[in-house]
């Protein structure tokens, strides 16, 4: 690691993941699959110990394979319960590869997150009750394209690295230390200390990120420690912390770390007295020694003996060792890892988890709520296969298996009387029947398409916001989803990607702006994209359009009334062909003729609602027949 230029951040992240997969949680690698991803994975894998597990989660994995459960065949043969470890337990101590993380389903996500959090998992399936170790790191491949939700925020929150891997990325061979060097670093890792200055710098940087979770900060701390091990340093100092911050915190929206000499200003570091913080003192019933624990001056007794541990707090600004970081490494890391529109997004309020409205359309972290494929099987439950419910044969057999011996005894007794000869190999009774349990698809997905141009924009937006919230508030049962597209100025924007979380919608709706031109065509085009996406998710889309019907920006984003109208009508025709129900709410003061025409093209009629308030809009949007 003594090259002049230093490794690029992607190589660095790969090495760190290989060094401490469970401690760092792993990485979310964003971008289409291809040689770059393969090369990156190869770097990780070639730096793992040869015998350590490496498991791939296939797309259609069933919960029993992932989590483990009953091994039916062996149980029957052995006459006792034989469990079967799941993929996550098999991967204990190693890495789990998760392709298509953007399609992660909740029944896969839940055990995965548990393993990341606890290093083990609870198995409660089919008569098996176990708690096997599953200390894994996850490498999630997020291949979402523009406008699709990516890997769930809950997963991104648990992996140290979020890597927008460039399609042409290649590792530089001289920056790869090799498996033997990594093994040494792994051995050194438990003995690496972190200086109080480093810890504080990371905490400050994370606090400015504005997200709620503690995890990024903790991951940054562990990254700092792993970096020190990788760079053969005895401790993680402020310089290492700056690099860790650049790798872990900055991609989530924290400000850039101060670099180089600025960061190493000894005065700045010493201005903060390294005393137990106020928070500690407020805990008035804290035991005496708790203060010591918190005090950065004294390493706790019983810490693994490292020769440097004692000096660490006293000489925090000690000159870096010769194998030091190249001066330009941190800026380079930051440049490479920042989302492209970072400068944009910085100006906007950043949401929790580092997601921000600025990343237009890239509606990150649609949560764990699965993109429901209609009727996707997620398990079995007792029931009769009727009324469209389908028999789950394997589950039925599992349910029947334990009873076989009892039933054959009973049957043998009957047979003595009836002389009915041979009994069937397998006796299944109605009680055994299992039907497939399916993810209930969302009843509908209402796409609000809102004209935020002109002077009435803000009021209209306010009412739509209310309508969205009303709709979500009384749709638990039906599992309706909403999405909100706003068009104004030159373009349309998906402000609220499809969600059924009121909290999430409310956060995203905060601080919407209005005014400017009326790019109705762009709005319709965006709605069309969401209609296609809804169909892919197997959800019924419906559109509620609110506008005063004076488009003046065309599909290409250029001004001009007549082209704007023609484009809008053309897109309306296209939308009609998708068979999507549309409501057109005319919010102009006196009713706008163009909207009647547009509505005809959409296969509907325009409703004049000059004083549309939240409740009226909600009624108009209601999927119920009452509407």
């Amino acid at each position, binding site marked *: 690691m003594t090259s002049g230029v230093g490794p690029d951040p992607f190589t660095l992240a790969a090495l760190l993941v290989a060094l401490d997969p469970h401690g760092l949680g792993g990485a979310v690698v964003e971008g289409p699959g291809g040689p770059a991803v393969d090369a990156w994975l190869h770097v990780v894998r070639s730096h793992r110990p040869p015998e350590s597990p490496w498991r791939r989660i296939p797309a259609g994995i069933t*919960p029993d394979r992932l*989590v483990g459960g009953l091994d039916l065949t062996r*149980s*029957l043969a052995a006459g*006792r*319960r034989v469990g079967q470890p799941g993929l996550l337990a098999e991967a204990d101590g190693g890495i789990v590869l998760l392709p298509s993380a953007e399609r992660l389903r909740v029944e896969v996500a*839940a*055990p995965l997150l*548990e393993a990341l959090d606890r290093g083990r998992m*609870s198995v*409660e*399936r*089919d*008569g098996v*009750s176990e708690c096997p170790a599953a200390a894994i790191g996850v490498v999630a491949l997020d291949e979402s394209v523009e406008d699709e939700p990516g890997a769930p925020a809950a997963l991104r929150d648990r992996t140290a690295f979020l890597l927008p891997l460039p399609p042409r990325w290649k590792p530089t061979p001289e920056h790869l230390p090799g498996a033997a060097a990594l093994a040494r670093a792994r051995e050194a890792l438990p003995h690496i200390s972190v200086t109080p200055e480093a810890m504080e710098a990371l*905490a*400050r940087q994370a606090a400015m990120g504005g997200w*709620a*979770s*503690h*995890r990024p*900060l*903790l991951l940054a701390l562990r990254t700092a420690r792993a970096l020190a091990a990788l760079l053969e340093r005895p401790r993680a100092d402020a310089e290492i912390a700056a690099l860790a911050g650049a790798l872990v915190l900055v991609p989530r929206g924290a400000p850039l770390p101060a670099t180089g000499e600025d960061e190493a200003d000894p005065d700045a570091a010493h201005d903060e007295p390294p005393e137990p*913080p106020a*928070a*500690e003192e407020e805990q008035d*019933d*804290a*035991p005496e020694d*708790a203060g010591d*624990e*918190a005090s950065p001056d004294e390493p706790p*007794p*019983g*810490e693994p003996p490292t020769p440097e541990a004692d000096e660490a707090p006293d000489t925090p600004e000690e000159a870096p060792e010769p194998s030091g970081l190249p001066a330009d490494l941190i800026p380079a890391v930051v440049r490479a890892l920042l989302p492209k529109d970072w400068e944009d997004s910085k100006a906007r309020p950043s949401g*929790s988890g580092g997601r921000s409205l600025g990343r237009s359309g890239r509606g990150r972290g649609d*949560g*764990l709520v699965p993109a429901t494929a209609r009727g996707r099987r997620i*398990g079995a*439950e007792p029931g009769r296969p009727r009324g469209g419910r389908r028999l789950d044969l394997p589950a039925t057999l599992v349910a029947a*298996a*334990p*009873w*076989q*011996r*009892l039933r054959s005894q009973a049957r043998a007794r009957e047979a003595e009387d009836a002389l009915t000869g041979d009994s069937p190999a397998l006796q299944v*009774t109605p*009680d055994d029947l299992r039907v497939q349990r399916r993810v*209930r698809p969302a009843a509908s997905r209402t796409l609000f398409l809102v004209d935020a141009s002109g002077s009435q924009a803000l009021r209209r937006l306010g009412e739509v916001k*209310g309508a969205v*919230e*009303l709709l979500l*508030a009384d749709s*638990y*049962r039906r599992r309706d989803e909403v999405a909100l597209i706003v068009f104004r100025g030159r373009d349309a924007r998906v402000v609220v990607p499809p969600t059924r*979380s009121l*909290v*999430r919608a*409310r956060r995203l709706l905060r601080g919407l702006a209005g005014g400017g031109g009326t790019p109705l065509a762009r709005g319709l085009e965006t709605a069309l994209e969401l209609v296609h996406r809804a169909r892919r998710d197997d959800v019924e889309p419906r559109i509620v359009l609110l506008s005063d019907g004076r488009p003046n920006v065309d599909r290409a984003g250029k001004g001009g009334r007549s082209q704007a109208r023609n484009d809008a009508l053309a897109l309306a025709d296209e939308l009609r062909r998708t068979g999507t129900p549309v409501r057109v709410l005319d919010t102009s003061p006196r009713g706008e003729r163009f909207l009647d025409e547009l509505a005809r093209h959409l296969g509907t009629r325009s409703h004049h609602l000059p004083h549309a308030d*939240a409740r009226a809009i909600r009624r108009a949007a209601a999927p119920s027949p009452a509407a």
Partner: protein
Amino acid sequence: MPRPFPFSAIVGQEEMKLALRIAAVDPSVGGVLVFGDRGTGKSTAVRALAGLLPPIPVVEGCPYGCAPPEAGQTGSAGGGCPVCDGPAGGRAGEAGTGGRAGKGAGAGDSAAAAAAGKSGRNGTAPHGPAAGAGPAVVERDVPMVDLPLGATEDRVVGTLDLERALSDGVRAFEPGLLARANRGFLYIDEVNLLDDHLVDLLLDVAASGENVVEREGLSVRHPARFVLVGSGNPEEGDLRPQLLDRFGLSVEVATPRDIEMRLEVLRRRDAHDRDPEEFHRRWSGQDGRIRQQIRRARSSLDTVEVPDAFLRRASELCLALEVDGLRGELTLLRAARALAALEGRDRVTTTDLAEVAPPSLRHRLRRDPLDESGTTPRIHRALEETGIQEEAASEKARSA
């Protein structure tokens, strides 16, 4: 199993910690819901609680962890246990089928019958010394049972014991998670993502305190009284109102924005990461104090006095907030009583009321989706308007 993070080492999150302690003192409060941003230590706190609770005396060999009977009583203390109450005891109606299941349930019968005269190991158990032929009693950790989202129904309610069915041809009941959680806690992380059919099942059992399994001659009903603890992130989806209502207390957690507190969180996590044993040793004293506090509060709970004035205040508050039903008032009463007991007082005060009002009521207010301010400020407003806040303040001034 690695030990959970020490409860007392959790920085801040006072409301959550208080709610969990209250539920530990008085399970009839009805469970705790912890909602908040991801990564704020929700499940850490819940799991930490398990490491804190004083052990409970249970009938040896009872798969449901029944409490030993009080002196002079027979059968299980709570009633309804197919093992402790024996095939002939308890519910005559189910004696036939219940008996079969009871036999299947393993060593239970024999353990209950072989009444060794051992009493509890220390004097903390609420039962009297076993006079004559009581069941053998052992001490056990309070169960903290995880209900993973992927759990199958048979593991939750219990099912046929596969092993005994296959090897001995015996129809035996194998208790599930609900049995294991009896007298303890049932914890569901990401409770808002739990499958509907499991939610329905839990609601049923939580309401009745009893789990009923009926299948092909397997007929068992057993006690399943547990404190439901759920945590989740509201951004992943809302909780069904029916389930929301089941929880006695509801807590909202947020991350401290204060940098020193964050730093403290980091330091402690780091110390725990690096040397968990040492970390536990460091905090064991403080955890022990909380354990002691809970133990004392439990035994003094019944003697805490609740003045009529308190009840009137609680009703006024519920009226002001338009909380319907008795549940809100009852939760206020129980939570305040547990709080007073925790603080070693023999009387509930208005200050207690003001403190437990937000977690007891915030999930019971009618939701107005157009009101952005959320429910907590509404409760504080109501506390002001009813004069409770003022009364509590003067109470504090007097005692100071």
